[in-house]
């Protein structure tokens, strides 16, 4: 479970202070698929960085699977990130001079799995994304959609509890985007909690919940129907007003 309470994140310069997150509270239950939407500069990516332990926060409380992350050493945060969180980025962020296999291998190396286990996990992850036959290809030899699927394989190879996706379809055409979303839904159905940051309301509607951010605060909170029953409602946008953020924490 991911639980943030009154999280504030401030970027400071000599002249001004900017609140990227202001008393932000959110609770995400295991196996949820939550979409985070909002205009540029609303704090979506900052939220994802804080949630992914890539950035610290100034105040508030953040528990990840029951661990209060505040005050953890860098080693402990990195270990937690490595074991519990997978990242997917808009620009894929594959390491250009490593082939597909070695890219998927990166988080497993830091996990200190032995060779056999790494091999098995890499094989399973690439099978899942349909790229087992491209293991020796370099990223530059793949299409955008394929690269994003490699990034997804890399994110899930360590079997993380949370998958944090920052505009994962932003650089893809609509067909590729749909395939990636299908894949994310499939991974979610296998039990992985997904937090998806997106501009695209169409994609957001495929999530179980939608958290809308403005100026670092939750401005709207909508709960969707279960995915199997949702498409009609999601397509019309008839979501209704969901419970308040505070209620969500209750």
């Amino acid at each position, binding site marked *: 479970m991911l639980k943030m309470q009154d999280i504030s994140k401030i970027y400071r310069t000599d002249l001004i202070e900017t609140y990227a997150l202001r008393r932000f509270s959110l609770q995400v239950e295991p196996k949820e698929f939550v979409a985070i939407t909002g205009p540029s500069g609303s704090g979506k990516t900052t939220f994802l960085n804080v949630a992914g332990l*890539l950035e610290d926060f100034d105040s508030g409380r953040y528990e990840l699977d029951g661990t209060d992350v505040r005050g953890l050493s860098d080693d402990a*945060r990195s270990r937690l990130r490595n074991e519990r969180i997978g990242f997917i980025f808009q620009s894929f962020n594959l390491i250009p*001079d490593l082939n597909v296999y070695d890219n998927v291998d990166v988080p497993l190396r830091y996990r200190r799995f032995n060779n056999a286990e790494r091999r098995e996990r890499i094989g399973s992850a690439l099978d899942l994304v349909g790229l087992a036959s491209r293991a020796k290809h370099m990223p530059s030899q793949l299409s955008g959609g394929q690269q994003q699927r490699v990034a997804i394989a890399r994110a899930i190879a360590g079997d993380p509890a949370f998958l944090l996706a920052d505009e994962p379809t932003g650089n893809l055409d609509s067909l590729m985007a749909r395939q990636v979303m299908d894949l994310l839904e499939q991974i979610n159905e296998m039990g992985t909690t997904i937090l998806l940051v997106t501009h695209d309301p169409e994609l957001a509607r495929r999530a179980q919940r939608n958290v809308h951010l403005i100026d670092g605060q939750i401005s709207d909170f909508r709960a969707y129907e279960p995915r199997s029953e949702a498409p009609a409602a999601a397509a019309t946008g008839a979501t209704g007003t969901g419970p308040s953020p505070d209620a969500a924490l209750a």
Partner: protein
Amino acid sequence: MLGYYTHLAFRSFGRNPGITALMVLAIALGIAVCIMTLTVFHAMSGNPIWWKNDRLYAVTMDNWDPNQSFRKKHPDLPPPIMTYKDARVVASSDIPERKIIMYTVEATLSGVGAAPLRTDTRMTTGDFFAMFDVPFLYGTGWSKSADNPPQPVIVLSRKTNDTLFGGTNSVGRVLRWNDHEFRVVGVLDDWFPRPHFYDLIGGAFQPPEDAYVPFAWGPALELQSSGDTDCWKPETINNEADFLASECVWIQTWVELPDRATRQRMQSFLDNYWADQHRAGRFPRPRDNRLTNVAKWLRDNQVVDNDNRVLVGLAFAFLAVCLINTVGLLLAKFLNAAPVTGVRRALGASRRQVFLQHLVEVAMLSVLGAALGFGLATLGLAAVHHMYAAAHLGHRGGYQELMHFDTVGVFWAIALAIVATLAAGLYPAWRVGRMPPAVYLKSQ
């Protein structure tokens, strides 16, 4: 993880071969210059008998002019050589485990069929060979009983034996030394103490003597020193006996003292002797009787001049410039790869792991730089060797003998590689580990 980091380092080298080559070359040049300079410096300042540094002592007593010191530039130092009568007193003491009094003369060797050979001969006592761990190819030195009265025995250097006897075992053969018959009792193996610590008068890097003969033959045959003979007191010297009784200094005196207690006893012996002589009207200057170990002896006698120290300083300054350049290149390279580092951090690498990964890369660069530097230094030293060998054609020994690349040079190469690693790599590796990953993840 070390294997993984090594693998990543090789990939990194392949990604930027030009910058990698520049860094290796910068480290190599700095190390090569330092190794060359340090090798020369080491050869010129090293203690060639360091393992006996706490046993061997030069004996000196300040018998000099009350109105001026022996050395104007270093008035605190007594004469490095002694009078005959004082040296004899030291030689008569039972306190040292071994003792030597000695000086050099020019002598001619003949009588073995070959053309007469002019030699530098060291007039010394029998302890010389054991005291200075001199290696023998054939035979041995002479026994103490051959010192007094002196026996007609001689030890030849290997070079002299090669010249006179074609390198064969000449022990037992008789030759003529200054027209007196002497029997060969030993032939030295190659022996070239650098510096020539036991007698610095002829130069710190002169080759050892060609022959060795019992000291007492010198006064008996009235052979004058070919080294320094310094006198300060107006004295009437009409014959050898007058000279031997004079305040002139010309004899090197060394003792081997096995422990602190023996050294203290020897110091007391000298001080008591000085007091007796002082009461008798000698030693007009303040008491200054010294037992000086080899390392201090070399320092006192300024075997390493300031030019060489400056040269070493410049070499290290050059290394520093090379390392600063390397730091700049490393920083540029690592920061250029910051987005990839950001990805690694996002995937679970800690700052420590990022630091270690980059440090391994730097260590490998340093090893490559050190290896190349070692090769360049070897070439450079060989060039210096050939240059000096050409300048001293036909003369064995001398400055060119300093240019041998030895194990000390290897040690310095390794030590410098480690220092280079730490100096050049720590900061860039630390810096790249501290970069906030989130900044680069969005921008890649």
